[in-house]
């Protein structure tokens, strides 16, 4: 868990990152409080108690099957966790064409929350600045 240098926000971030760590690197650069979902299938599904924005990579390249990482699906299958999601941000790669950031669209549609943003790989400095500012303002609007 990362510590937050700014004033407490009304919500938090929940994210998944595979061993490649791309999404993890992006979240680190945001410098906002964030909870990482466990990679291993055998780890217990975490419970979240505050509203959150989900950041998820897209398993790229194919169709909709397998686009959303398993740990994200398991986390959202928990009704309590699902009720607290307010938005989703997706990582991906435009090389995957139609499927760019597809995990974000799927989660947005299934949970009926907005897809807030998409970025590629580790995200650029511009992506980091936009998401940091956007998430802060998003929570202000929610309160």
């Amino acid at each position: 868990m990362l510590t937050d240098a700014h004033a407490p926000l009304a919500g938090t971030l929940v994210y998944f990152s595979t061993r490649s760590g791309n999404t993890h690197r992006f979240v680190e650069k945001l410098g906002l409080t964030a909870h990482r979902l466990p990679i291993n299938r055998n780890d217990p599904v975490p419970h979240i108690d505050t509203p959150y924005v989900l950041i998820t990579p897209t398993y790229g390249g194919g169709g909709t099957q397998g686009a959303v990482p398993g740990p994200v699906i398991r986390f959202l299958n928990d009704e309590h966790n699902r009720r607290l999601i307010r938005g989703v941000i997706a990582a991906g790669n435009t090389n995957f064409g139609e499927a760019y950031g597809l995990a974000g669209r799927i989660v947005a549609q299934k949970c009926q929350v907005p897809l807030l943003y998409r970025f590629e790989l580790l995200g650029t400095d511009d992506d980091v600045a936009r998401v940091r500012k956007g998430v802060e303002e998003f929570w202000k609007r929610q309160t």
Partner: protein
Amino acid sequence: MNTMQRLSRVDAVNWNRLQDDKDLEVWNRLTSNFWLPEKVPLSNDIQSWNTLTQQEKQLTIRVFTGLTLLDTIQGSIGAPTLMEDARTPHEEAVYTNIAFMESVHARSYSSIFSTLCTTRDVDDAFRWSEENPMLQAKSELILERYRADDPLMRKVASVFLESFLFYSGFYLPMYWSSHAKLTNTADLIRLIIRDEAVHGYYIGYKFQQALNEATPERQQAVKDYAYELLLELYDNEVRYTESLYDAVGLTEDVKKFLHYNANKALMNLGFEPLFPSSVTDVDPTIMAALSPSADENHDFFSGSGSSYVIGKAVATEDDDWAF
């Protein structure tokens, strides 16, 4: 000197005992993405091809010949070389897939040629490729690293080939597609672009694993060396791009595409992007040809959120969603 543990003997590969589950994840992704050029109805582009000027035809054939050379290098030398440095038997197997698919890519360009072009024009282009100094220079810059005894730099060169060097060429079919020309050819190129993304990601991931085990001094040296190689390749790509695209007035936008993809190549290696967003703003119609939804507004934060609608229904076939 060799920072990686090479596999010194061959054991039967057991996919039910993984040292790194990324190997299986990528194997599954690559095999489910398998395709052959016969699947794309290239002959539907014959009419469109005939609307191109002789100069545009020559440019297109030359671009595809240049791409063929890169795919040939990667299929016959690049991926097999990486196999020698593999850390797991599963990684070796993934490289066999990558090597084969690069050969499929190289073969695809010949399918495009035999469908659309005259033998003479194609022969001319292959002769051009053998004599073009920029094309030969990029090939040599990569091959030098493949031949040298530095497994980390072999992966760096490989990621630069997969994630950067192809893009001066990929630009053109995306451009034609955005003008409703050669759209079936563009569909085939999109399959190649998709494959190269997985290749760059995976080789970059294996690079980062190995780099993490190196001393801080060595890490810094490899990083410096990687940026140096990128800039060397970039200078050559700029010259190559000018020589091809000046005549059709596209050079400046192709350069933006180069910057954009150079950043992604660096990110695949775990390094920070180099080019600022002021020089990566590729023409939106090219981005839309690459990724049809890329031009949709998914920046809810930018204040234009009012125009935002929650995504269209996306059918998901994953059966583990419980709601």
